[in-house]
């Protein structure tokens, strides 16, 4: 009898659920947090002022060590997790090296304390590691330190899983001031510092030199003449890029004018919002911003490029390995909105079809330098400024850092301070510069950027004649051999200057949702399913459909009337 069965099943479920609810209601003595908005940092753990640091690393280390050794602790264990491409091993080894250096100081001062670091490095992006961290925290199986993208900062801090480093970091102003200012913003949330920058990248606009030369031969127009300077001064805007792209296509010098990423909108394409003078976050209200005029202008650029056949209509569905990269490295486009990491990716992956053999192979560093010119991401329109966008990786310290050590409840302050000192040491300019060179990331501090121009030091690195922990030396030896190349280091040194122009995407827990809506809209305008105006309305409708998102997003401005792209 189906109807009776249904009633029985529903009744059983309702009774059980009600039972559990009643049980929980009766037994839960402690007040439950009702934070439904993630903006409240109330749950984050603030270190008590018992162990104040001075800003002198050696002095601080010895003070912390004294507290620990007087309590009978002679070994402190920390775990560090990190993720990234195979060459980014210093994200975890940097902490191992820092422990090695701190242990040396302790030894030299006759202190019987040893810091042991257990590291785990995963290949791939940080999203999986972030999810694993969340789940592990519940079981107290999380690492003490984690290298991951700064985009998770708001989510982690809002859930109280991160140690507030502000009281410690404030003492180390020398170190803080050496970081690029935008990167320091990346580690702050609600005015507090929750992480230390580890590495970053920038997003140059790549221009094919051979396509530009072809245009010059056929039309006499020299696109590349002082291009980097003209972009920097804001004289080249996206309308200029459009005209150049048109030339490339009309002259038959390239099949496409502009190629960009597939799939998600952030962060390569988000640069358009900043290039059009828009913003994504309001620090005063703590809300995300949907800057209607800037988003409309961005979508208008995509729409115009796709309608003129300068960008593929199906760009968002292209295959990275089979279409996007081959199109770029084989010179079938004038410009490519890429990232600094592509410079070396083209040297390691076989995207290029050798015209002599007809076989696929990676480009050599010399070929990459021969084919590619790079500039900042141009201003959206006249009067605007060029931009770039970075997504730094940072080192987080868990709110329960040191939990695996004895007398944790009693000595948590000392363990927390020690974890912070590890990060300070791991930020040593040479550690940061080594990571930059071998992984093609940009240094996060100016002192490390300086080292990239220090030929003597680079020579020492190439021969591995640096004073490093044996474990670290052994692990990076093959990567150093394959990556330390003057062409690549020069590229890194040049694009490091872009960090003065860099922007970051907001560290808001709902930013990911908003970016995902942008991606949908870009796809729709490229395919011609929607006009830019309709797509903006679509974005607004999607934002409003999610009550949480609607509460967190401020919609500002209107679609500019009579504004057209290209503007000139």
């Amino acid at each position, binding site marked *: 009898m189906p109807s009776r069965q249904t009633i029985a099943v529903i009744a059983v479920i309702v009774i059980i659920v009600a039972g559990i609810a009643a049980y929980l209601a009766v037994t839960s003595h402690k007040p439950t947090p009702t934070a439904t908005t993630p903006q409240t940092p109330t*749950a984050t753990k603030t270190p008590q002022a018992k162990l104040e640091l001075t800003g002198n690393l050696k002095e601080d280390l010895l003070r912390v060590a004294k507290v620990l050794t007087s309590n009978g602790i002679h070994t402190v264990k920390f775990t560090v997790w990190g993720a990234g491409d195979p060459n980014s091993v210093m994200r975890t080894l940097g902490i191992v090296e820092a422990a090695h250096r701190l242990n040396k100081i302790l030894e030299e001062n006759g202190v019987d304390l040893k810091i042991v670091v257990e590291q785990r490095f995963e290949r791939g992006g940080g999203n999986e590691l972030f999810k694993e961290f*969340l789940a592990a925290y*519940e079981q107290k199986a999380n690492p003490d330190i984690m290298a991951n993208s700064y985009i998770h900062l708001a989510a982690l801090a809002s*859930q109280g899983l991160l140690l507030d480093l502000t009281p410690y970091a404030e003492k180390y102003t020398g170190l803080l001031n050496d970081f690029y200012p935008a990167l320091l913003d990346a580690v702050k949330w609600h005015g507090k510092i929750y992480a230390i920058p580890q590495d970053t990248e920038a997003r140059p606009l790549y221009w094919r030199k051979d396509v530009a030369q072809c245009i010059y031969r056929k039309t006499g127009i020299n696109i590349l003449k002082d291009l980097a300077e003209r972009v920097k001064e804001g004289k080249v805007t996206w309308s200029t890029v459009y005209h150049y792209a048109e030339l490339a296509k009309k002259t038959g010098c390239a099949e496409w004018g502009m190629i960009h990423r597939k799939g998600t909108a952030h962060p390569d394409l988000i640069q358009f919002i900043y290039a059009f003078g828009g913003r994504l976050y309001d620090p005063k209200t703590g809300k995300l911003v949907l800057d209607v005029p800037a988003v409309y202008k961005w979508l208008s650029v995509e729409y115009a490029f796709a309608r003129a056949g300068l960008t593929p209509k199906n760009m968002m*569905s292209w295959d990275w390995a089979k279409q996007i990269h081959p199109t770029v490295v084989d010179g079938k486009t004038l410009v490519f909105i890429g990232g600094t990491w592509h410079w070396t990716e083209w040297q390691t992956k076989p995207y290029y079809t050798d015209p002599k053999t007809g076989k696929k192979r990676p480009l050599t560093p010399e070929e990459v330098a021969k084919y590619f010119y790079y500039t900042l991401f141009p201003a959206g329109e006249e009067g605007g400024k060029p931009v770039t966008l970075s997504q730094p990786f940072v080192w987080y310290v868990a709110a329960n850092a040191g939990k695996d050590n004895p007398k944790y409840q009693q000595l948590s302050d000392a363990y927390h301070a020690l974890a912070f000192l590890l990060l300070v040491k791991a930020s040593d300019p040479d550690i940061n510069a080594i990571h930059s060179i071998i992984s093609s990331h940009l240094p996060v501090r100016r002192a490390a950027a300086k080292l990239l121009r220090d030929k003597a030091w680079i020579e020492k690195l190439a021969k591995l004649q640096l004073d490093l922990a044996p474990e670290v030396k052994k692990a990076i030896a093959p990567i150093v051999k394959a990556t330390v190349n003057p062409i690549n280091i020069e590229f890194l040194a040049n694009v490091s200057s872009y960090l003065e122009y860099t922007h970051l995407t907001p560290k808001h827990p709902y930013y990911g949702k908003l970016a995902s809506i942008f991606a949908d809209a870009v796809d729709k305008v490229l395919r011609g399913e929607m006009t830019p105006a309709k797509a903006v309305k679509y974005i607004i*409708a999607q934002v409003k459909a999610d009550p949480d998102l609607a509460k967190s997003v401020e919609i500002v401005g209107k679609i500019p009337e009579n504004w057209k792209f290209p503007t000139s």
Partner: protein
Amino acid sequence: MGAERLRSFLTSRRGHLAFFLAPALTLITIFYLVPLILSIYISLTPLKYWQLNRYLTDLSHPLENYYRLFYLVTHHPDIGKVVITTIVFTGLTLVVNVVGGLLLALATYLMEERFSLFYRTLWLLPRMTPIAVYSLLWYYFFHGSRFGILNSILLSLGVIHKPVWWGVDEKLLPWGAWMILVYVNGLVGVSFGMIIFYSALRSIPREQVMAARVDGATTTQLIRYVLIPSIKWHIVFVTVWELLSLLTTYAHIFLLVEWGLIDKWWGTTWALFVFNTAFTAQALDQGLAAAAATVLVAIGLVLGLITLKIMGFKELMIEPRGEL
């Protein structure tokens, strides 16, 4: 006294029933009922970012997730596509799986055993292949560039003159995306029906088939009047089973959408929407996902019961009337 009672219970008809049903009931409780109850319970809490200690005991706004879900369904510009896709995908794939499974079973039943075994194994391959590998295979088959296998075949035959983006092309949507979904999932699902129907057909007494043949029945008549009526209950079972499986399937679809082979909204089913809401790093909203999953369970329950009613499940459960 207690032991006496237990013995009399175990020797009674109810005792026998309890004894034999206990293993199955235990499994159902552990693997179905408990997760279901947990899911319903989680839907009443604001659980997110997997922070169980923080949110799991918070029942201060038990209907909040259902309100959010209702709001989403009534305001989101693309959620309607998800609902329609779920209905079309489930309906079409169900037909492919049941009818296809039946045709394959009949074909393999009627052919010689040595060919039959090879043929059946062949159809099991999609089910045996790891999901990622299998999906990748179809990703390259249907890919919209000239590297896509289907495109390169059609281009070389001169059927099309430029590559077609089967799953995302505006002119082909939504059917382009749906066809890929149905095709890929249908190939996986069809083997289930085939195995059940084939073994059911094999259990029909040979005499019945031979008698029909002797009486001059053609193959079509044999299928229509002897074979299909004999496996009616298997058809009911496979239909209901596949219906419920299809409502909750998402693995292949997830990969095809993630890789950009099919349109994000015309390719997302409700089950995938639940998965994305709970597990993608951008969302991690387990409370809302649990609410959406609970709605799916309720719909599955109702649809299952309706299907059983339409297909005459009651008749199956009637005590046999004995030998005629």
